[in-house]
Every structure is written in C-alpha cells, then in structure tokens.
C-alpha cells in the first residue's frame, strides 16, 4: 500500500540526511528534490501547483497583498447587514399558516419510481428540508442522500419551465389543440403505432391510467426504460418460483447473513428500510453479547461489503459458481470433507460462510444485489429455501413496479418503423438507453415524439414536443414503497413553473376534459377504497402520507429445484468490466443537483466526476495510478475515464459508473465525466466483458475530499471484539488542564456516534448541507482542499490491499470542552456558551483562519470566495434560521444551534426543561440507522448519556486533552480466533 500512498517515512529519512537541525535552507533543498515533489503530489495534491508555480518571492508578494486587501472584504455591499426594509403581509392569510414558522407535511420522495415516506418542512410556503416520516410503515423516519437532496432539485434553475414545440416556446392549450386530431386518428386505429415509454412506475394511479388506456387502445404498447430497475430481481424470482416477486428481508429473525454481492446497505429504494432493520437487529444481538455476523463477497467493494465482518473479493464470473457451491454444500447430506485447507481467500470465505449457514437453519439469510444476474438471484432463493429461511428471515410480495413490455421490443419496433407516435414520460432514453439501442438515431424514424421531463434533456432536445414535468414536491401523486405501502405525495408549494404531472399529461392527451392530478388521484382512490366514509379515510391518508394497511401480503412460495451449475468458464479472459450506478447522481437523472455532485462517493471519496476503478494489484501490474486515463472499447463504442485505485476490489475487475457524460442537463452537471451508457448492451446492462481495456493518453487530477486513506498508526476508529476487553475509555476526561473551563450547572449538549451502526451512506452529510445552508464550492475549489461540508464521513483502510477493510467515521465538530480553536482566535469570534457549544460568531470573524490551524480535527471551513452566491431560485431553498455566510468568514458545525434554541424557547414558554429527544440535529434526524445520539449529557436519563456510558465509548484524539463533547462507540468485530 505504501507504493500508492504518501510515504512520510521516506520524507523523514530525507530530512535526516540533510542534517541534524534542518534549517529553512535545508528544507528548501528537500523541497526541490523529486522525492518531496512526489510525496506532495500523492498526499497533498492541492499543494502541488503552488510548489510548481510562483517563486517564494511571488508567494510573499501575493500574501502581503491578500493581507492588505483582506479588510476590504468587510466593505462588501453584496450582503446587506440590515434586514429587509419592507414588510408584505398577506391579503388573506391561509388558515393554519404562521408566517416564518415551520410547517411539516407528510409526503414522499421517489427513487426509480419507488417511494420512501418523508416529512417536508416548509417555511412561508417554501419547502426547505426533508425529514423522515417516523409513521411510515416502511421508511420509519430514515432518509437517504436522494431524499435529502430532492429539495434542491425542486429549485434547480435549469428545470424546463414551459412547453416547447420544435424548440420554440409554446403552451398547454396549443399542445392540446395540436394533439386533438392526431389522437383522434390514433384512437380510430385502436392505438396502432402508438407507444408509451415511461420510467419505472409504482404509482397505483398512473398504473390504473395506463391500464385503462391499454383497454381503450388495445394496439397501444407500454414500455419501461429503467436504467437501474428491478428486472433482474423479478426475473430471478421467476426462475426460482415461477412468478415475479419482490424479496423482503427480516434481519431481526436472522443469526447469520451471507451476501453474494448484496447491496442492502447501498443506494437504492431499499436502503433506508434495510439499513435500519439490519442495524436494529445487530444492536439487539450485541445486547445479548452476540454478533449478527455478515459474510460478504463482491467484485467491487460496496457499503454492504465494507460493513461485512467476513469478506473476500470475488470476480463477478465466480459469483454464480460460488453460489452453486454453497447450495451444494448446504444440501449435501454429509459434512463435507474437511481435509484440505481452502486454497484461496474466496474459498476460505466460502467454507466459513457455509459452516455458519448450516449452523443456522431457518435463522440465516442469503442475499444478493439488484445488479446481479437472474440466475444468481434464483440460486440465492434456492439456498434460502434449502435452509428453511423462506417465511422466516425472507418473505416475498408481488412486484411493486408495474410490468410493462421490454424496452428491447420498443427498439425493435422503432427499427422496423412500426412506431408513429411515441410518448416518453419521465424518461430520458437518448441518454440512458443502452448504447447498442442507438436510440437517438431510431427516434428520427418516429413521426411524432412527445417528451415529458423535468429538464430539456438529451431526449427533450430531439423531440417534437417537450412538456415540463412537475417536481414531486409540487405535485399530487402516489407511489408504492418496497413493501407495497401506497404512499401519498402532496404538493408543498404552488408549481414554480407551468408544468404538469405525468397523470395530468396523460389526461391532457387522452381525455376530452383534462383533469387535475388531484382529481385523477382522488377519483382513483375513491374507486379503490369503496367505503362510505371515504372523505375521512382519504384525509387520514393524506395527513399520514400513506394509505393505512396497504402493504402487499407476504407470500411464501415454493422454490423449484436448482438448475445444474454452469460449467466453469475459462479463466484466461481479459479483465471483466462491470457497470454500476453512481452512488450520488444515480443513473444521471440527478446530475444537475450540486449537493449530490459535491457529495463524496462513499467508497471512493471522489467528487464531481466518475472514475474507472481497479484494484491496487491491477494498477501495479498495468503501471497505472490515480488519474491515468484509460479507454474501454466495445465494438464501435468507446469511453475514456480516469483510473481510481480502490483497495479491496477484485484483481480482475474494472468498474465503470453510470450517471455522467451528460451534455444537456444544466449548468451543474454538463460536461462532467464519461458516459458509461455507451458500453451498455440491451442484452446485458451490468457487464461489458467483451470490451477492451486500454491505457489512454495522459492523466487528470481527480477531486477528492480525503487524501489520506490510512490511520497511520492511530486508533481513530476503534474496534471492539465481541467478548473482549472494552476498548472504550474515559481517560480523555480525567487529565488535568490549564484551560479555564466554564462548567455550567445547566445543560451540556453532547453527541455520540455509533461506528458500528454507521454504514457510510452520507445521508447525514446532505442533511447537514440542507439544514445549515452549507455552500457548494465546485470541483476546482475541492481540488484546492476547500470543500465546505460541516460533517464529513472519513473512510479508512486497514489490512492488506487485496482484502482491505474499509471503515467509516462521521466527523462533525467535536465541540471540545477545552477547545484549541478558541485560543487561536484574536477577536473572540469562536467561544463557548454556557451549554458547552463551541460557537462560531460570523459577524465577529475577521478571517485569520488561526482557529482552523489550531483545530486538530480539521472540521473548520473557510469561505475563501463568495461560495453562497447562487441564482435567486436556489436561494429559495435556504433555511431562514441559519445565517448565510459571506466571504472571508470561518464556519463549522454548530450542533444545529438553531434547533437547540428553538427547543429552548419552546421549553421556556412552557416553563419546563427540554425533553430528551426534543432537540435532534439534522444529521441525527436524517440517519437511517440512528447511529447518532444527541442530547443533554447533564440529563442522567437521556439517550446520549446512556450511549456515553457504553463500554465502547471513546474520544477521537482524546490524548490531546481536548475533552470532545462528540464521542464514538467502537465498531464491533468478531473475535479474532474465528477470523
């Protein structure tokens, strides 16, 4: 690993060689050496240009000028220091609304057409923040990065704002008039030549609309293009059970979990619920002194793989044989011969996993991932059946997504010229269709192309009509969550533009009297509910955000006997090339969301682009390093992207990420990364094995938020072996100190982060950004090390490269009781309050940045530029309870002081103390696994106090005697001898 990462040992040797007492002259000699340059390039890329660039004299000149001109930042008129000078009250104030006070509505956010129940916080009629809906039967109060970021998507300035006909502005009435004759003809031919293409649909109302359309127009065809989708899951269930089914995991009933490239902790519509239930089950086992062990193999490390207690990298092509071997091992009557020790780490893992599974009949669970082949899904079902898990740890329900005709059929029909009218609803096939579909070319053969989308994207620009689609936060709609629960989406703001929902657009095109989305949906549910007291039930559903008891009933199907294992493929094939969705911008549809672009990818910590990941050994063999451009060619399609070395990846595997290479999504997302869709094939979405991997020309610097991957001998992340001596300690709080500590007799805010429960999902990072008006700085500023996230999730590796163990650690401000930063500040802009908060007073800050230099945790961020400048519509999202910071001001995590003060005022007015759980920080509230405890440490009964008394509790860098208020609970690992 040292070959890839900065070798500070070498630097020290170099310094030693210079002389006993290195003077600045000597340091300069060191700085000129190629070794030092290499060290800087590797461990501090942002300093590289400075070394190479101006001379020392020039740097001093620039610094002197900055110092002299620094004060001018205070003369800036862009941020008026006084409040607005006008008051504009309502003419008629809506009932139930108090100006400037937050109001929550139950609604939902969508990913791939599937809902997760949410609460939308609005202030003055503007949605500004998404919180989890604790009442929702599936999501249970958790959130993910996509739901947190969806509020920014509403205010995206690049959303399409009006109907366009042949790139000219038009309107809905013109559209309706123009379509009247056209659709009359289509109706007369019973829909012949008419095709409807949508994204994945789980909405009961929209599915009903489509079903009625198909009834009225029997010749019409409906297709779904799902860049990620769940087709493999359904096809796998069909192979194993004879019908398409959705799989539901019940971790609480399991004693051991085996994942064959499973993704239950990774991004997707399942992430919130699965990670919550998995952590809950793991915690309840830990209370009994046991470990709910997770065994995982994967070709490319995922969050699920990283959280596994036992893991091994396995090639994609070896997964299916491994699954068959597991099945054979489990169904074998006799104990398998225990003679020869397993040859490879994967075989050793397999033996260990099989033994664990056999010991847990009916209480084990085998899972695989969304992107895995139907064959693997089928074998996993058969393993679960063989273990007697079906009906216990795993149940099945009907698919929540509507089943349409395959996308490939549409491509064939378009090629044959059978399609005359194509309606594309909330989908972007020109960008997101597999490369071999040549969709852009085929589209020219269709005489009438209608596209409804949130942006005038690649497809919209090539369509005759582009129709602006409403954002879910401004629409009436419904959708199912993965357990089938019908979830109601209600608008939280008047439509920003003259847009329509998907249901409304179908109504405009096919109904004589177009209806509103609300009427369409309400009519559907009135028909469904068939109750005398519909109004009450309906209002309850809208208020709660879901239809009560609408989850699909669980099924326990019988598995067919397994197919024989395929013969082993020859191992001399070139590297296997996998394609995966991007964990932040997903399939590319979220590409214009700046929060998601700047969110570090959980495993890679890269931002603003996609990369080609390879293992360290692969990189060493090919002499590749981070940023080297490579080209992957498949037929006539080729993409080139930069290499990113990912420890723990399988040696023969290369991973490409979807979601980039867009050129008409908007100002944020255009021109970033490469487009991996070009290498996708209709017959195989997730793998491009026939592709040729070649070294490209040159290399580029990749923006990353974490330069150092190892803990360098420190114990930042402590590991607690089950049954071993506690690794936590309170030593950090008993050392003598010279600081003047103003101990308060009142409240003492504190936070405890459970590293065992943290899955590295990043929901907290986006939640913090949304709550605290944290600006986005862009790729260049991230390259300069100026990212602004108040809360970062550090990812550290331990162990050898080939089976590196990745661990996650969220790092907010520690709110040290003896805070070094406060000594550094010359103007008392950072200081303590009586409840132990380390405050940052923006209007006092003069921007010396001394506090940041003094901070051992590096959680302070400086506004080097006017980062908060944004288009007016983006500013609408901002939280009015938090100051928007100007240039030249330091900022950092405040423990959401605005929420603390709101809680304090509410309690004060009722003359009571603040209840435990009344004040929750944005990160703690967003966390799907409830890994973050926040509360009053002076309250002996509070959850955070109890968490602090856990034997796993320790302070990060406690030896520095900073007495941090934020502490950590060590992650659990299995006992050594078994590992």
């Amino acid at each position, binding site marked *: 690993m040292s070959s890839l990462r900065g070798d500070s040992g070498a630097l020290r040797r170099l310094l030693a060689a210079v002389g006993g007492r290195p003077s600045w002259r000597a340091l300069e000699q060191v700085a000129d050496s190629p070794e030092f340059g290499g060290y800087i390039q590797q461990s501090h890329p942002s300093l590289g240009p400075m070394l190479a660039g101006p001379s020392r004299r020039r740097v001093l000149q620039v610094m002197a000028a900055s110092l002299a001109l620094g004060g001018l930042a205070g003369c800036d008129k862009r*941020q*008026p*220091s*006084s*409040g*607005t*000078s*006008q*008051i*504009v*009250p*309502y*003419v*008629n*104030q809506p009932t139930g609304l*108090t*100006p*400037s*006070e937050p109001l929550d509505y139950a609604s939902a956010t969508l990913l791939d057409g599937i809902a997760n129940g949410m609460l939308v916080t609005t202030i003055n009629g503007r949605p500004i923040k998404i919180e989890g809906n604790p009442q929702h039967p599936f999501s249970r109060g958790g959130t993910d990065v996509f739901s947190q970021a969806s509020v920014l998507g509403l205010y995206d300035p690049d959303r399409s704002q009006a109907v366009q006909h042949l790139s000219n502005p038009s309107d809905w009435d013109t559209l309706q008039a123009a379509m009247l004759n056209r659709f009359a003809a289509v109706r007369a031919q019973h829909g012949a030549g008419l095709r409807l293409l949508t994204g994945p649909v789980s909405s009961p109302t929209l599915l009903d609309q489509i079903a009625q359309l198909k009834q009225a127009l029997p010749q019409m065809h409906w297709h779904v293009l799902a860049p990620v989708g769940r087709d493999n899951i359904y096809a796998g269930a069909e192979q194993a059970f004879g019908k398409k089914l959705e799989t539901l995991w019940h971790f609480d009933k399991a004693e051991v979990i085996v994942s064959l490239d499973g993704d239950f902790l990774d991004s997707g519509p399942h992430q919130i619920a699965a990670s919550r239930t998995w952590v809950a089950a793991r915690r309840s086992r830990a209370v009994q002194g046991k470990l709910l062990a997770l065994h995982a193999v994967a070709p490319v490390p995922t969050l699920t793989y990283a959280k596994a207690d036992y893991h091994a990298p396995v090639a994609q092509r070896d997964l299916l044989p491994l699954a068959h071997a597991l099945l054979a091992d489990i169904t074998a009557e006799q104990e398998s011969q225990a003679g020869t020790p397993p040859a490879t780490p994967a075989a050793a893992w397999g033996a260990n996993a099989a033994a664990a599974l056999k010991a847990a009949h009916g209480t084990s669970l085998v899972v695989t991932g969304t992107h895995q082949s139907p064959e693997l899904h089928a074998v996993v079902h058969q393993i679960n059946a063989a273990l007697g898990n079906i009906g216990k740890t795993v149940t099945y329900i009907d698919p929540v997504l509507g089943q349409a005709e395959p996308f490939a059929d549409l491509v064939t029909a378009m090629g044959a010229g059978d399609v005359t009218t194509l309606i594309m609803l909330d989908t972007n096939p020109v960008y997101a269709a597999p490369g071999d579909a040549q969709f852009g070319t085929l589209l020219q053969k269709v005489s009438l192309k209608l596209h409804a989308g949130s942006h005038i994207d690649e497809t919209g620009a090539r369509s005759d009509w582009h129709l602006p689609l409403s954002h879910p936060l401004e629409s009436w709609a419904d959708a199912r969550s993965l357990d089938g629960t019908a979830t109601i989406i209600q608008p939280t703001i008047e439509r920003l533009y003259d847009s329509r929902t998907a249901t409304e657009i179908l109504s405009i095109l096919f109904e004589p009297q177009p209806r509103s989305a609300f009427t369409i949906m309400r009519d559907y549910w009135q028909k469904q509910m068939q109750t005398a007291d519909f109004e009450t039930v309906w209002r309850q559903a809208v208020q709660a955000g879901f239809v009560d008891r609408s989850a699909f009933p669980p099924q326990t199907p019988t598995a067919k006997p397994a197919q024989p294992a395929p013969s082993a493929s020859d191992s001399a094939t070139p590297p296997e090339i996998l394609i995966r969705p991007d964990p932040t911008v997903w399939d590319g549809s979220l590409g214009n969301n700046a929060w998601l672009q700047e969110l570090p990818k959980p495993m890679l910590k890269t931002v603003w682009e996609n990369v080609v990941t390879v293992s360290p050994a692969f990189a060493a063999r090919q002499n590749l390093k981070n940023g080297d451009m490579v080209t992957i060619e498949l037929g006539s399609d080729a993409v080139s992207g930069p290499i990113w070395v990912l420890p723990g990846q399988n040696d023969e595997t290369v991973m490409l990420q979807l979601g980039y290479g867009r050129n008409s999504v908007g100002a944020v997302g255009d021109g970033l990364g490469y487009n991996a869709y070009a290498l996708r094939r209709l017959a195989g979405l997730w793998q491009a094995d026939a592709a040729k991997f070649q070294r490209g020309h040159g290399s580029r610097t990749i923006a990353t938020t974490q330069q150092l991957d190892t803990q360098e001998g420190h114990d930042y992340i402590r590991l607690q072996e089950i049954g071993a001596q506690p690794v936590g300690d309170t030593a950090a709080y008993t050392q003598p100190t010279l600081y003047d500590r103003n101990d*308060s*007799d*009142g409240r003492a805010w504190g936070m405890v982060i459970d590293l065992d429960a943290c899955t590295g999902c990043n929901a907290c990072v986006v939640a913090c950004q949304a709550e605290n008006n944290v600006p986005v700085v862009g790729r260049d500023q991230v390259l300069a090390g100026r990212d602004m996230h108040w809360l970062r999730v550090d990812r550290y590796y331990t162990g050898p490269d080939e089976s590196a163990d990745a661990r996650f650690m969220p790092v907010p401000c520690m709110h040290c009781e003896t805070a070094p930063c406060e000594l550094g500040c010359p103007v008392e802009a950072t*200081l303590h*309050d*009586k*409840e132990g*908060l380390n*405050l940052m*007073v*923006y*209007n006092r800050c003069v921007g010396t940045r001394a506090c940041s230099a003094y901070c051992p945790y590096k959680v302070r961020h400086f506004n080097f530029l006017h980062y908060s400048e944004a288009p007016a519509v983006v500013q609408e999202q901002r939280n009015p*309870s*938090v*100051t928007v910071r100007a240039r030249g001001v330091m900022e950092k995590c*405040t423990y959401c*002081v*605005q929420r*603390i*003060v709101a809680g304090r*005022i509410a309690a*004060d*007015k009722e*003359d009571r103390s603040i209840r435990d759980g009344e004040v929750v920080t944005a990160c703690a509230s967003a966390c799907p696994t409830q890994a973050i405890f926040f509360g009053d440490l002076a309250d002996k009964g509070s959850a955070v106090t109890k968490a602090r008394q856990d034997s796993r509790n320790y302070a990060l860098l406690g030896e520095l005697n900073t007495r941090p208020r934020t502490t950590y609970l060590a992650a659990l690992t299995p006992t050594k001898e078994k590992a």
Partner: protein
Amino acid sequence: MSQLFQPRADAIFRFVLWTAFLGAVVALFVAEGLSHSSYLTGRNIIQPQPTEFSHQHHAGELGIDCRYCHTTVQTAASAGMPPTHTCMTCHSQIWTNARMLAPVRDSYANNTPLVWQRVGRLPEYVYFNHSVHVDNGIGCSSCHGDMTRMQMTWQPHAFSMDFCLSCHQAPQNYLRPQSKVFDMQWQPPANQQEIGDKLLKQYHINTSGLLSDCSTCHR
C-alpha cells in the same frame, strides 16, 4: 550654501503632526456619533407608509388590543403583520368610503398586498423571537415605546447590541408582571429591584449568563 531647512520648517512639521493627530481624534468622535445617529440606526425616523395608519387612534383612543392585529406575538418569533383582511373586518363596516383607506380597499379588492416600510430593523444575523420575550414579562413598550402616542409609527430606540444586552445582562430591571406586558404606559415602579428578583424566579429565567451568550441571538 544656505541651510536646507528654515527655522519655520519645524513649526510647519509640528503643525502637520498635531493636525493629523487631532484630525484622527475628531474622526473617531464623528464616527462614534454617526453610529448612534438616527441616520444610521433608523431611530425616530418616520417612514412613508401606503396609508397613514395611526397606532395612537387604534391602540390608544379606540383601545384595540395589540394582539388583534399582531396575532402571533405570544406564539411565534414574528409578532405578525395583519393581513388586509384584518383591516377590512372593521373597515368594510365603518369609514367605508374614506379616502385614506383607498389603498386598503384596493388591496382587498385586487388581492394585492399592502407594502409597508419596516420601522424596527434588526441586522440579518440577529434572530429575535417575540413570543419568548412576551411570555417572560418583557412588555411591548420596552422596545417599541408607547405606541398609543404614535400618530405615525417610529422606532424610539436604536436596536443596537448594547440596547439588547442592557436587558439580557440584567433582566430584573425590565421584567413586568404578566398583566402589565401590554401596558404601554408602564414605567418601572420604585421597588422594581424587589419585584424584578421575584419575577426572575417566577418566569424561571436563566441567570447563569446564558442569556448573554452569542448563541442566544446569533446562529
């Protein structure tokens, strides 16, 4: 060769030095004075409003309660500005043709809001909450002055940080019993020290110094 400097050069040099020094001192005093001036603080300045609404008439002579219009003063951060509808509850019945009320009628008829000029201005980085002050015995007139005497509305105090801190550091000097909170003529009684200390306890006011912590008003 004559002398480079004449004897009066010293005098000129001294004069320049003294002028510069005195000029700096004067500039400091001017800056200090300006910062407290009505011009910069907005104190005692009457703004042109869409209609000449008189607090003296409504709150003073007619005796309409503050909370009839400022409805959320006890429950929310903002005291609340009355919607046009509130004006029209009375003015659809009385003074229905008054010329002065034409902007109000137009607003109601055309559904266009009235645009008032703000009188009491706080910097954007200050977060003030009306409800918690009213609830803890700080009366309207402590900050807004006697509104029942204002024909047109002005701000009698400069909302500078020392004004806020004068109370946050010693709230007992300003606390009133709950019955006097909306009393515009309230003045501290002779035994305010004694009453104030009792009220501190009655309102459960935190005297640890938390009230003058930065986080209380700035976020």
